[in-house]
């Protein structure tokens, strides 16, 4: 297929996934802010979020004070913030539009309808209660699009590049969600127990749809170590790093070309480290350090995918 087409599909999937993950990340903050606790802790949560996604400076320049209302305005509907949910949905739609001939009409309709509804939602101010519903809606639309991709798309190269984008984005995002929460919760979490911790960790697990999974897998109290194990190493957890990287590796081998051997090797190496890794070793290194390293490696994979497949040279 055309390199440019593959590029649009890959970014269409990444932006769709990014919008969803942003909604998940914001939802966890939003839920935590509803718990009985000081406004300082709430503010800490937003500061950590803005820092981890690398937008703290841009935010400060435009909004100044870190308040839940400001942070939500910046990250949800701000069309001048290229990383807002609004902008991500628009970018997903623009990429889809550029290759709508490659998409099934159902996929296009799903993505286009999301954008049209988003434009309407972006035009009116939303109340606090509506914001919660809005995050649900973003997730729901993303589920729908993914389901339509799953249900209607030919299993050809276009399919593989779409999922390559999805899983690379998701691996990065799960790492960030874990990092931002761990950063905040660990000092208190190590003591274990306590109602506040329970809700904090519960909110984190909920944000990656893992609360019920945690219960099923561990049938026990929520502990930070197990949360990390679930989200990093469990191969059967759909949003874990292990699961994402193994999917990246699978789709990468399916589109293999004459210059992609090194990229494939690096993806395989990362996959092996997750397959055979132990949570104890990760904690010895420090979870934050581990996650930073991990995000560096997935960023490298993303750049290599672009170079190998998406912007090929003339000769």
């Amino acid at each position: 297929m055309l390199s440019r087409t593959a590029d649009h599909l890959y970014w269409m999937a990444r932006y769709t996934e990014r919008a969803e993950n942003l909604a998940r990340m914001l939802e966890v903050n939003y839920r935590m802010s509803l718990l009985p606790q000081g406004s300082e802790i709430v503010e800490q949560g937003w500061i950590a979020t803005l820092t981890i996604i690398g937008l703290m400076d841009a935010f400060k320049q435009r909004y100044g004070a870190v308040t839940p209302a400001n942070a939500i305005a910046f990250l949800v509907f701000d069309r001048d913030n290229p990383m807002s949910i609004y902008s991500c949905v628009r970018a997903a739609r623009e990429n889809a539009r550029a290759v709508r001939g490659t998409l099934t009409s159902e996929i296009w309709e799903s993505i286009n309808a999301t954008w049209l509804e988003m434009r309407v939602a972006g035009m009116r101010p939303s109340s606090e209660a509506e914001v919660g519903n809005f995050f649900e809606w973003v997730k729901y639309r993303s589920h729908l699009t993914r389901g339509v991709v799953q249900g209607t798309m030919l299993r050809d190269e276009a399919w593989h590049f779409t999922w390559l984008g999805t899983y690379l984005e998701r691996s990065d995002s799960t790492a960030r969600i874990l990092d931002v929460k761990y950063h905040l919760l660990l000092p208190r979490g190590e003591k274990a127990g306590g109602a506040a911790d329970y809700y904090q960790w519960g909110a984190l697990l909920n944000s990656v749809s893992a609360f019920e999974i945690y219960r099923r897998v561990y049938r026990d109290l929520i502990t930070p170590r197990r949360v990390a194990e679930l989200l990093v190493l469990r191969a059967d957890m759909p949003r874990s790093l292990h699961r994402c990287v193994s999917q990246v590796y699978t789709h990468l081998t399916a589109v293999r070309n004459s210059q992609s051997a090194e990229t494939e090797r690096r993806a395989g190496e990362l996959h092996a480290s997750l397959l055979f890794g132990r949570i104890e070793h990760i904690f010895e290194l420090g979870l934050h350090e581990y996650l930073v390293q991990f995000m560096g490696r997935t960023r490298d994979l993303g750049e290599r995918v672009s170079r190998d497949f998406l912007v090929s040279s003339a000769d």
Partner: protein
Amino acid sequence: MPAVKPYDEMHAEDGSVREHYRTFSSWLDRTPKDRVAQKRTEADSLFHRVGITFAVYGEEAGTERLIPFDIVPRIIPAQEWQHLAAGLRQRVRALNAFIADIYHDQNILAAGRIPAEQVLCNGQYRPEMQGVDVPGSIYAHIAGIDVVRAGRGEFYVLEDNLRVPSGVSYMLEDRRMMMRLFPELFAQHSIAPVEHYPDLLLENLRSVAPHGVNDPTVVLLTPGAYNSAYFEHAFLAQQMGIELVEGQDLYVEDEFLYMRTTRGPQRVDVIYRRIDDDFLDPLAFRPDTMLGVPGLLSAYRAGRVTIANAIGTGVADDKSIYPYVPEMIRFYLGEEPLLSNVPTYVLRRKEDLDYTLAHLNELVVKEVHGAGGYGMLIGPAATTAQIEEFRQRILRNPEKYIAQPTLSLSACPTFVDQGIAPRHLDLRPFVLSGSEVTLVPGGLTRVALREGSLVVNSSQGGGTKDTWVLEK
């Protein structure tokens, strides 16, 4: 406006419903008004969701407009269509013969049937094409011929579009929409199908591949997602199952054309291009364009790739050449034209100019290179000041204009704010030329939504209707 009452597609002069509209008309009478209203709303939201829109330049990315769709179909009885189709095939055969002649021996000029300077000094004549052989001697592979009905309902050809005619996606989507909204109507009528147009088009494009290529790779070349007709480009590429490419996806090496793919370069044999000649190759035409492919003309002249439509077809669809098409039919085919031209005054001729200047308030004056309904004077609707201003423009460059009598275009009942009222319309059937000349029974019907307006272009507020050719 002319005093004559326009030909009404649905009603005869005595007010009775014409036979081919009877079934539809009684359906419309029977169907509750609120159901029809609800279906019209549904059509709008479906068009938006599916994204059948055209981009509007200068607005935020992601804003596109709908072309209004009207649910009253334009119905053509079988016999009328057979006559029309035969006339269109004849016309397009002659036009292709003309272009081939002009770029080779120029017999028609030698015979004095068309003034040579009219052709050779025309900006649309491409000297680069002189002596270049193209597969099957076909130049206008896809022709959109604009037809109107006037007077007592006779057909006139208004314009030949031989460069990059657009609108066929609306023909297909309007049909799909009507079937979705009113399936019962299709059960009650015997309507000739048009849905196979993309298959015909692909077959046609494959039939003109360079000599010796057995399994040609066909691509559709678009200027990109911000072009106003992008929806159509994407739609057709998808329907034909071919790649939708932009200039940046292609490159020429050793006079062969390649596209960049995730698995390396792949040869391309046929380009269905939807960009104008000027933008095709920065090395040969406009150097400042990013839309085309450097070196494409050299690959084309070497016979390594087919471009559809060919470069230089504009020489045959220019408004200054239009008056000579009946002559082409006689010259190349030895036949009398089956379809009439609109009588046309060519203002480079002294006697035509004098007549026109004396009758500006009755005539439509058009720029010979104008398109999209811009740059024209509709005499009966113009103010004295507008007429005077146009008079000066004509006097400065008479050779840039032609004039035609204002035809009383036929009208068809159409939903408007006040209810149902007659509105003027035209028809653009699409004629395909390859190893044979074919067309699907139907075309794009455009309708002027403003009362009394004769301008049907979508850029000027026109809408569309589904076009039904009855099978019996």
